[in-house]
Protein backbone atom coordinates (compact mmCIF):
# COMPACT_ATOMS: atom_id res chain seq x y z
CA UNK A 1 0.00 0.00 0.00
CA UNK A 2 1.19 3.44 -0.83
CA UNK A 3 0.53 7.03 -0.02
CA UNK A 4 1.51 10.39 -1.31
CA UNK A 5 1.34 13.79 0.37
CA UNK A 6 0.79 16.88 -1.73
CA UNK A 7 3.53 18.96 -0.16
CA UNK A 8 2.26 22.07 -1.95
CA UNK A 9 -0.91 21.80 0.13
CA UNK A 10 0.73 20.63 3.38
CA UNK A 11 0.92 23.43 5.96
CA UNK A 12 2.54 21.45 8.75
CA UNK A 13 -0.51 21.04 11.00
CA UNK A 14 1.08 17.64 11.81
CA UNK A 15 -2.20 15.89 12.56
CA UNK A 16 -0.97 12.88 10.55
CA UNK A 17 2.14 12.56 12.73
CA UNK A 18 0.04 12.35 15.91
CA UNK A 19 -2.23 9.70 14.40
CA UNK A 20 0.33 7.57 12.52
CA UNK A 21 3.76 8.29 14.03
CA UNK A 22 5.37 5.26 12.35
CA UNK A 23 4.50 6.54 8.89
CA UNK A 24 4.74 10.32 9.20
CA UNK A 25 7.26 12.46 11.05
CA UNK A 26 8.21 16.09 11.40
CA UNK A 27 11.69 17.32 10.68
CA UNK A 28 12.02 20.54 12.61
CA UNK A 29 8.77 22.42 13.10
CA UNK A 30 7.26 22.23 9.66
CA UNK A 31 8.95 19.86 7.20
CA UNK A 32 6.93 16.66 6.85
CA UNK A 33 8.61 13.34 6.13
CA UNK A 34 6.64 10.21 5.28
CA UNK A 35 7.08 6.61 4.13
CA UNK A 36 5.47 6.32 0.71
CA UNK A 37 5.01 2.58 1.28
CA UNK A 38 3.36 1.18 4.37
CA UNK A 39 2.11 -2.24 5.38
CA UNK A 40 -1.28 -3.57 6.37
CA UNK A 41 -0.59 -3.13 10.09
CA UNK A 42 -0.50 0.67 9.57
CA UNK A 43 -3.59 0.87 7.40
CA UNK A 44 -6.01 1.88 10.13
CA UNK A 45 -3.69 4.61 11.39
CA UNK A 46 -2.98 5.91 7.87
CA UNK A 47 -6.71 6.13 7.13
CA UNK A 48 -7.21 8.17 10.28
CA UNK A 49 -4.30 10.43 9.37
CA UNK A 50 -5.64 11.03 5.85
CA UNK A 51 -9.14 11.83 7.10
CA UNK A 52 -7.78 14.20 9.76
CA UNK A 53 -5.58 16.28 7.44
CA UNK A 54 -6.98 19.85 7.70
CA UNK A 55 -5.99 20.58 4.10
CA UNK A 56 -6.73 17.07 2.72
CA UNK A 57 -3.22 16.66 1.32
CA UNK A 58 -2.84 12.89 1.85
CA UNK A 59 -3.73 10.44 -0.91
CA UNK A 60 -3.85 6.74 -0.04
CA UNK A 61 -3.68 3.93 -2.56
CA UNK A 62 -4.51 0.48 -1.23
CA UNK A 63 -3.72 -1.37 -4.44
CA UNK A 64 -0.06 -2.23 -4.63
CA UNK A 65 -0.02 -2.24 -8.40
CA UNK A 66 1.44 0.11 -10.98
CA UNK A 67 -0.12 3.54 -10.57
CA UNK A 68 -1.50 3.64 -14.09
CA UNK A 69 -5.26 3.32 -13.88
CA UNK A 70 -5.35 2.99 -10.10
CA UNK A 71 -7.88 5.34 -8.49
CA UNK A 72 -6.38 7.12 -5.54
CA UNK A 73 -8.90 8.09 -2.90
CA UNK A 74 -8.88 10.13 0.21
CA UNK A 75 -9.65 8.88 3.67
Amino acid at each position, binding site marked *: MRLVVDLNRCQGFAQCVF*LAPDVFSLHGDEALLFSPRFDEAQRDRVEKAAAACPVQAILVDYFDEPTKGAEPHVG
Partner: protein
Amino acid sequence: MTSGTLITQITDYANRADPYPLYAELRKIPVRREDDGSYLVSTYYEVRSLANDPRLSNDTTNRPPGYARVGQPEAESGLPPSFIFTDPPVHDRLRETINRPFGPPHSPRFLDGLRGELATVVTDLLDAFEGKDQVDIVEDFAYPLPVTAICKVLGVPREDEPRFHVWADALASSLDPQAGDDGQAKAQQARQDMGAYLADLIETKRRHPGPGILSALAPDMTPADLEATAVLLLVAGHETTVNAITNTTLTLLRHPDVLDRLHKDPGLAVPLIEEVLRYEPPVQFVPWTTALADIDVADTTIPKGAPVWLMLAAANRDPKRFKDPDRFDPGRKDNEHLGFYTGIHYCFGAPLARIELHVAVPELFRRVTFSRLLEDPPPYRANAVLRGPRHLPVAIEALTA
Protein backbone atom coordinates in the same frame (compact mmCIF):
# COMPACT_ATOMS: atom_id res chain seq x y z
CA MET B 1 -34.45 41.52 9.28
CA THR B 2 -31.84 43.80 10.84
CA SER B 3 -28.42 42.47 11.75
CA GLY B 4 -28.94 43.32 15.40
CA THR B 5 -31.93 41.03 15.47
CA LEU B 6 -29.93 38.18 13.92
CA ILE B 7 -27.08 38.14 16.42
CA THR B 8 -29.55 38.44 19.28
CA GLN B 9 -31.32 35.41 17.85
CA ILE B 10 -28.10 33.43 17.50
CA THR B 11 -27.19 34.00 21.14
CA ASP B 12 -30.83 33.53 22.26
CA TYR B 13 -31.15 30.20 24.08
CA ALA B 14 -34.46 29.55 22.31
CA ASN B 15 -32.47 28.88 19.12
CA ARG B 16 -29.72 26.74 20.64
CA ALA B 17 -31.09 23.42 19.36
CA ASP B 18 -31.03 24.57 15.73
CA PRO B 19 -29.06 27.72 14.93
CA TYR B 20 -28.42 26.65 11.33
CA PRO B 21 -31.29 28.58 9.64
CA LEU B 22 -29.92 31.70 11.35
CA TYR B 23 -26.42 30.97 10.04
CA ALA B 24 -27.90 30.63 6.53
CA GLU B 25 -29.49 34.05 6.96
CA LEU B 26 -26.17 35.40 8.20
CA ARG B 27 -24.27 34.16 5.12
CA LYS B 28 -26.39 36.40 2.87
CA ILE B 29 -24.03 39.18 4.00
CA PRO B 30 -20.62 37.46 4.34
CA VAL B 31 -19.15 40.27 6.46
CA ARG B 32 -21.89 41.89 8.49
CA ARG B 33 -21.52 44.96 10.68
CA GLU B 34 -23.38 44.82 13.98
CA ASP B 35 -24.88 47.92 15.60
CA ASP B 36 -22.13 47.91 18.26
CA GLY B 37 -19.39 48.02 15.61
CA SER B 38 -18.50 44.31 15.73
CA TYR B 39 -18.23 42.35 12.47
CA LEU B 40 -19.61 38.86 11.89
CA VAL B 41 -17.92 36.77 9.18
CA SER B 42 -19.89 33.70 8.13
CA THR B 43 -18.78 32.43 4.71
CA TYR B 44 -16.12 29.72 4.29
CA TYR B 45 -13.46 31.46 2.21
CA GLU B 46 -13.68 34.71 4.17
CA VAL B 47 -13.45 32.94 7.55
CA ARG B 48 -10.49 30.86 6.36
CA SER B 49 -8.70 33.85 4.93
CA LEU B 50 -9.16 35.93 8.10
CA ALA B 51 -8.12 33.04 10.37
CA ASN B 52 -4.82 33.06 8.46
CA ASP B 53 -4.46 36.85 8.42
CA PRO B 54 -1.75 38.26 10.71
CA ARG B 55 -3.74 41.51 10.89
CA LEU B 56 -6.35 39.70 12.96
CA SER B 57 -5.42 39.46 16.65
CA ASN B 58 -6.49 37.03 19.40
CA ASP B 59 -5.38 39.52 22.05
CA THR B 60 -8.55 41.40 23.00
CA THR B 61 -6.61 44.21 24.72
CA ASN B 62 -6.38 45.54 21.15
CA ARG B 63 -10.08 46.44 21.37
CA PRO B 64 -11.08 49.99 22.24
CA PRO B 65 -12.50 50.49 25.76
CA GLY B 66 -16.12 49.41 26.08
CA TYR B 67 -15.83 46.10 24.22
CA ALA B 68 -15.64 42.71 25.94
CA ARG B 69 -12.01 41.71 26.57
CA VAL B 70 -12.52 37.97 26.35
CA GLY B 71 -9.70 35.90 27.83
CA GLN B 72 -7.85 38.78 29.52
CA PRO B 73 -7.41 38.27 33.27
CA GLU B 74 -7.79 41.36 35.44
CA ALA B 75 -4.44 43.01 36.18
CA GLU B 76 -4.70 42.30 39.92
CA SER B 77 -4.89 38.55 39.27
CA GLY B 78 -1.22 38.60 38.30
CA LEU B 79 -1.93 35.96 35.65
CA PRO B 80 -0.97 36.31 31.98
CA PRO B 81 -3.54 35.39 29.30
CA SER B 82 -3.34 31.79 28.10
CA PHE B 83 -1.74 31.24 24.68
CA ILE B 84 -5.07 31.09 22.79
CA PHE B 85 -5.52 34.79 23.66
CA THR B 86 -2.05 35.89 22.51
CA ASP B 87 -0.44 36.77 19.16
CA PRO B 88 2.98 35.99 17.69
CA PRO B 89 5.74 36.09 18.77
CA VAL B 90 4.54 35.38 22.34
CA HIS B 91 1.97 32.88 21.07
CA ASP B 92 4.46 30.92 18.98
CA ARG B 93 7.01 30.71 21.76
CA LEU B 94 4.41 29.44 24.27
CA ARG B 95 2.76 26.98 21.90
CA GLU B 96 6.10 25.58 20.78
CA THR B 97 7.17 25.05 24.38
CA ILE B 98 3.88 23.45 25.41
CA ASN B 99 3.92 21.21 22.36
CA ARG B 100 7.33 19.80 23.22
CA PRO B 101 6.14 17.03 25.59
CA PHE B 102 2.78 16.72 23.77
CA GLY B 103 3.43 16.22 20.05
CA PRO B 104 5.84 16.12 17.13
CA PRO B 105 8.64 16.81 16.44
CA HIS B 106 9.78 16.06 20.03
CA SER B 107 7.06 13.74 21.36
CA PRO B 108 5.20 12.21 18.40
CA ARG B 109 4.15 9.10 20.34
CA PHE B 110 2.87 10.65 23.57
CA LEU B 111 -0.83 10.67 22.61
CA ASP B 112 -0.61 7.46 20.60
CA GLY B 113 0.62 5.82 23.79
CA LEU B 114 -2.62 6.76 25.60
CA ARG B 115 -4.89 4.83 23.21
CA GLY B 116 -4.82 1.61 25.26
CA GLU B 117 -5.70 3.32 28.53
CA LEU B 118 -8.49 5.32 26.88
CA ALA B 119 -9.90 2.15 25.31
CA THR B 120 -10.07 0.62 28.80
CA VAL B 121 -11.97 3.68 30.05
CA VAL B 122 -14.47 3.26 27.19
CA THR B 123 -14.90 -0.44 27.98
CA ASP B 124 -15.55 0.27 31.66
CA LEU B 125 -18.07 3.03 30.87
CA LEU B 126 -19.97 0.77 28.47
CA ASP B 127 -19.86 -2.20 30.88
CA ALA B 128 -21.74 0.02 33.32
CA PHE B 129 -24.67 0.20 30.82
CA GLU B 130 -25.40 -3.47 31.69
CA GLY B 131 -28.95 -3.97 32.94
CA LYS B 132 -30.09 -0.43 32.06
CA ASP B 133 -32.82 0.33 29.57
CA GLN B 134 -31.93 3.99 29.31
CA VAL B 135 -28.80 6.09 29.79
CA ASP B 136 -27.75 9.72 29.52
CA ILE B 137 -25.01 9.75 26.89
CA VAL B 138 -23.58 12.98 28.34
CA GLU B 139 -23.27 11.97 31.99
CA ASP B 140 -22.69 8.25 31.46
CA PHE B 141 -20.31 8.32 28.50
CA ALA B 142 -19.35 11.56 26.76
CA TYR B 143 -18.28 13.46 29.89
CA PRO B 144 -16.19 10.91 31.83
CA LEU B 145 -13.91 10.00 28.91
CA PRO B 146 -12.49 13.46 28.07
CA VAL B 147 -12.07 14.30 31.75
CA THR B 148 -10.03 11.17 32.29
CA ALA B 149 -8.07 11.86 29.09
CA ILE B 150 -7.14 15.45 29.95
CA CYS B 151 -6.21 14.44 33.50
CA LYS B 152 -3.84 11.81 32.09
CA VAL B 153 -2.36 14.25 29.59
CA LEU B 154 -1.74 16.95 32.21
CA GLY B 155 -1.01 14.69 35.17
CA VAL B 156 -3.93 16.03 37.23
CA PRO B 157 -5.47 13.58 39.76
CA ARG B 158 -8.76 12.27 38.33
CA GLU B 159 -10.31 12.20 41.81
CA ASP B 160 -10.09 16.03 42.02
CA GLU B 161 -12.65 16.30 39.21
CA PRO B 162 -15.57 17.38 41.44
CA ARG B 163 -13.47 20.43 42.45
CA PHE B 164 -12.33 21.61 39.04
CA HIS B 165 -15.58 20.70 37.26
CA VAL B 166 -17.31 23.76 38.77
CA TRP B 167 -14.44 26.10 37.84
CA ALA B 168 -14.23 24.70 34.31
CA ASP B 169 -17.97 25.25 33.80
CA ALA B 170 -17.76 28.88 34.95
CA LEU B 171 -14.80 29.57 32.66
CA ALA B 172 -16.40 27.90 29.63
CA SER B 173 -19.66 29.80 30.24
CA SER B 174 -17.78 33.11 30.20
CA LEU B 175 -16.89 32.59 26.52
CA ASP B 176 -20.58 32.96 25.74
CA PRO B 177 -21.29 36.53 24.59
CA GLN B 178 -24.40 36.48 26.75
CA ALA B 179 -22.46 35.73 29.92
CA GLY B 180 -22.52 39.42 30.90
CA ASP B 181 -20.72 41.07 33.82
CA ASP B 182 -21.96 38.52 36.33
CA GLY B 183 -20.65 35.65 34.19
CA GLN B 184 -17.30 37.43 33.74
CA ALA B 185 -17.00 38.00 37.50
CA LYS B 186 -17.71 34.32 38.19
CA ALA B 187 -15.14 33.37 35.57
CA GLN B 188 -12.48 35.61 37.14
CA GLN B 189 -13.12 33.97 40.51
CA ALA B 190 -13.07 30.48 38.97
CA ARG B 191 -9.83 31.29 37.17
CA GLN B 192 -8.29 32.40 40.48
CA ASP B 193 -9.48 29.26 42.30
CA MET B 194 -8.51 26.86 39.57
CA GLY B 195 -5.21 28.72 39.17
CA ALA B 196 -4.46 28.35 42.89
CA TYR B 197 -5.29 24.64 42.75
CA LEU B 198 -3.07 24.11 39.70
CA ALA B 199 -0.26 26.29 41.08
CA ASP B 200 -0.09 23.97 44.11
CA LEU B 201 -0.10 20.94 41.87
CA ILE B 202 2.61 22.42 39.62
CA GLU B 203 4.78 23.26 42.61
CA THR B 204 4.47 19.66 43.82
CA LYS B 205 5.37 18.40 40.35
CA ARG B 206 8.37 20.71 40.20
CA ARG B 207 9.74 18.96 43.28
CA HIS B 208 8.47 15.45 42.47
CA PRO B 209 8.01 15.04 38.72
CA GLY B 210 5.38 12.48 37.65
CA PRO B 211 3.66 11.47 34.42
CA GLY B 212 1.91 14.10 32.27
CA ILE B 213 3.00 17.28 30.54
CA LEU B 214 2.79 19.65 33.55
CA SER B 215 5.78 17.88 35.11
CA ALA B 216 7.63 17.98 31.81
CA LEU B 217 6.91 21.71 31.34
CA ALA B 218 7.63 22.85 34.90
CA PRO B 219 11.38 23.40 34.33
CA ASP B 220 10.82 25.32 31.05
CA MET B 221 8.03 27.78 31.87
CA THR B 222 7.41 30.52 34.39
CA PRO B 223 4.95 29.43 37.09
CA ALA B 224 2.44 32.04 35.88
CA ASP B 225 2.60 30.94 32.22
CA LEU B 226 2.31 27.28 33.15
CA GLU B 227 -0.61 28.00 35.45
CA ALA B 228 -2.45 29.89 32.67
CA THR B 229 -1.71 27.05 30.25
CA ALA B 230 -2.92 24.40 32.67
CA VAL B 231 -6.18 26.30 33.24
CA LEU B 232 -6.76 26.60 29.48
CA LEU B 233 -6.03 22.96 28.68
CA LEU B 234 -8.06 21.63 31.58
CA VAL B 235 -11.09 23.74 30.59
CA ALA B 236 -10.74 23.04 26.86
CA GLY B 237 -10.22 19.33 27.48
CA HIS B 238 -13.31 19.37 29.68
CA GLU B 239 -15.89 21.10 27.58
CA THR B 240 -15.38 20.51 23.89
CA THR B 241 -14.80 16.79 23.39
CA VAL B 242 -17.91 16.08 25.47
CA ASN B 243 -19.89 17.97 22.84
CA ALA B 244 -18.10 16.20 19.97
CA ILE B 245 -18.96 12.74 21.34
CA THR B 246 -22.53 13.74 22.18
CA ASN B 247 -23.11 15.46 18.84
CA THR B 248 -21.86 12.35 17.03
CA THR B 249 -24.27 10.15 18.96
CA LEU B 250 -27.19 12.52 18.40
CA THR B 251 -26.45 12.89 14.69
CA LEU B 252 -26.18 9.14 14.15
CA LEU B 253 -29.44 8.44 15.97
CA ARG B 254 -31.08 11.06 13.77
CA HIS B 255 -29.73 9.32 10.64
CA PRO B 256 -30.63 5.62 10.93
CA ASP B 257 -29.51 4.99 7.33
CA VAL B 258 -25.98 6.13 8.21
CA LEU B 259 -26.09 4.07 11.42
CA ASP B 260 -26.92 0.98 9.32
CA ARG B 261 -23.97 1.71 7.07
CA LEU B 262 -21.71 2.09 10.11
CA HIS B 263 -22.81 -1.32 11.43
CA LYS B 264 -21.92 -2.91 8.09
CA ASP B 265 -18.68 -0.98 7.72
CA PRO B 266 -17.05 0.10 11.03
CA GLY B 267 -14.34 1.89 9.02
CA LEU B 268 -16.97 4.51 8.18
CA ALA B 269 -16.49 5.88 11.72
CA VAL B 270 -13.35 7.77 10.70
CA PRO B 271 -14.78 9.98 7.91
CA LEU B 272 -18.07 10.12 9.81
CA ILE B 273 -16.38 11.79 12.80
CA GLU B 274 -14.88 14.43 10.46
CA GLU B 275 -18.32 15.03 8.96
CA VAL B 276 -19.81 15.58 12.44
CA LEU B 277 -17.07 18.16 13.07
CA ARG B 278 -18.26 19.96 9.95
CA TYR B 279 -21.98 19.46 10.47
CA GLU B 280 -22.21 20.08 14.26
CA PRO B 281 -18.91 21.65 15.36
CA PRO B 282 -18.40 21.78 19.16
CA VAL B 283 -17.03 25.34 18.89
CA GLN B 284 -19.62 27.21 16.85
CA PHE B 285 -17.85 30.52 16.51
CA VAL B 286 -14.79 32.45 17.65
CA PRO B 287 -15.94 35.85 19.02
CA TRP B 288 -12.58 36.98 20.43
CA THR B 289 -10.60 38.28 17.43
CA THR B 290 -9.84 41.95 16.70
CA ALA B 291 -8.68 43.79 13.56
CA LEU B 292 -5.20 45.30 14.01
CA ALA B 293 -5.55 47.35 10.80
CA ASP B 294 -8.27 48.19 8.30
CA ILE B 295 -8.96 44.86 6.55
CA ASP B 296 -10.70 44.67 3.16
CA VAL B 297 -12.73 41.49 2.81
CA ALA B 298 -15.77 40.65 0.67
CA ASP B 299 -16.32 44.27 -0.43
CA THR B 300 -16.30 45.48 3.17
CA THR B 301 -13.61 47.22 5.18
CA ILE B 302 -13.34 46.00 8.75
CA PRO B 303 -11.88 49.00 10.57
CA LYS B 304 -8.88 48.80 12.87
CA GLY B 305 -9.91 47.94 16.44
CA ALA B 306 -13.22 46.30 15.48
CA PRO B 307 -14.14 43.04 17.24
CA VAL B 308 -14.49 40.25 14.64
CA TRP B 309 -16.50 37.08 15.12
CA LEU B 310 -15.53 34.16 12.90
CA MET B 311 -18.62 31.97 12.49
CA LEU B 312 -17.13 28.48 12.02
CA ALA B 313 -20.43 26.59 12.08
CA ALA B 314 -21.86 28.92 9.41
CA ALA B 315 -18.75 28.58 7.23
CA ASN B 316 -18.93 24.78 7.55
CA ARG B 317 -22.31 24.91 5.83
CA ASP B 318 -21.43 27.41 3.12
CA PRO B 319 -22.88 26.05 -0.15
CA LYS B 320 -20.07 27.81 -2.05
CA ARG B 321 -17.63 25.37 -0.44
CA PHE B 322 -19.69 22.28 0.49
CA LYS B 323 -22.17 20.69 -1.89
CA ASP B 324 -25.56 20.13 -0.27
CA PRO B 325 -24.15 21.48 3.02
CA ASP B 326 -27.15 20.71 5.24
CA ARG B 327 -26.91 17.03 4.36
CA PHE B 328 -24.99 14.81 6.80
CA ASP B 329 -22.82 12.79 4.44
CA PRO B 330 -19.97 10.72 5.94
CA GLY B 331 -18.85 9.86 2.40
CA ARG B 332 -18.13 13.52 1.63
CA LYS B 333 -14.84 13.94 -0.23
CA ASP B 334 -12.39 16.72 0.39
CA ASN B 335 -13.93 17.60 3.74
CA GLU B 336 -11.76 20.58 4.70
CA HIS B 337 -14.06 21.64 7.53
CA LEU B 338 -13.22 24.38 10.02
CA GLY B 339 -14.42 22.39 13.04
CA PHE B 340 -10.99 22.76 14.67
CA TYR B 341 -10.46 26.29 13.24
CA THR B 342 -7.40 26.85 11.01
CA GLY B 343 -4.18 28.86 10.93
CA ILE B 344 -1.84 29.32 13.89
CA HIS B 345 -4.62 28.86 16.45
CA TYR B 346 -5.73 25.49 15.01
CA CYS B 347 -7.05 23.51 17.99
CA PHE B 348 -4.09 22.40 20.10
CA GLY B 349 -6.08 19.44 21.43
CA ALA B 350 -7.44 18.29 18.05
CA PRO B 351 -5.29 15.12 17.94
CA LEU B 352 -6.36 14.20 21.47
CA ALA B 353 -10.02 14.81 20.62
CA ARG B 354 -9.68 12.66 17.49
CA ILE B 355 -8.03 9.81 19.41
CA GLU B 356 -10.86 9.94 21.96
CA LEU B 357 -13.50 9.97 19.20
CA HIS B 358 -11.79 7.13 17.31
CA VAL B 359 -11.74 5.04 20.49
CA ALA B 360 -15.25 5.95 21.71
CA VAL B 361 -17.57 6.15 18.69
CA PRO B 362 -17.04 2.77 16.95
CA GLU B 363 -17.13 0.92 20.29
CA LEU B 364 -20.29 2.71 21.48
CA PHE B 365 -22.17 1.71 18.34
CA ARG B 366 -20.68 -1.79 18.16
CA ARG B 367 -21.73 -2.66 21.70
CA VAL B 368 -24.95 -0.74 22.23
CA THR B 369 -28.16 -1.32 20.31
CA PHE B 370 -30.12 1.90 20.65
CA SER B 371 -33.87 1.96 20.35
CA ARG B 372 -34.43 5.71 20.23
CA LEU B 373 -33.72 9.22 21.42
CA LEU B 374 -35.92 9.95 24.43
CA GLU B 375 -35.87 13.71 23.80
CA ASP B 376 -35.35 15.28 20.39
CA PRO B 377 -34.11 17.95 20.45
CA PRO B 378 -32.35 17.27 23.74
CA PRO B 379 -31.91 20.03 26.35
CA TYR B 380 -28.87 22.19 25.46
CA ARG B 381 -26.33 23.98 27.62
CA ALA B 382 -26.72 27.76 27.72
CA ASN B 383 -23.42 28.41 25.90
CA ALA B 384 -23.78 29.53 22.25
CA VAL B 385 -20.03 29.22 21.52
CA LEU B 386 -19.25 25.84 23.09
CA ARG B 387 -22.60 24.46 22.02
CA GLY B 388 -23.84 20.99 22.94
CA PRO B 389 -26.55 19.02 24.73
CA ARG B 390 -26.65 19.17 28.54
CA HIS B 391 -28.20 15.70 28.56
CA LEU B 392 -28.83 13.14 25.85
CA PRO B 393 -31.27 10.56 27.21
CA VAL B 394 -31.53 7.47 25.01
CA ALA B 395 -33.38 4.17 25.30
CA ILE B 396 -31.19 1.12 24.79
CA GLU B 397 -32.27 -2.32 23.70
CA ALA B 398 -29.20 -4.44 24.16
CA LEU B 399 -25.54 -4.41 25.16
CA THR B 400 -23.02 -6.83 23.70
CA ALA B 401 -19.65 -7.71 25.17
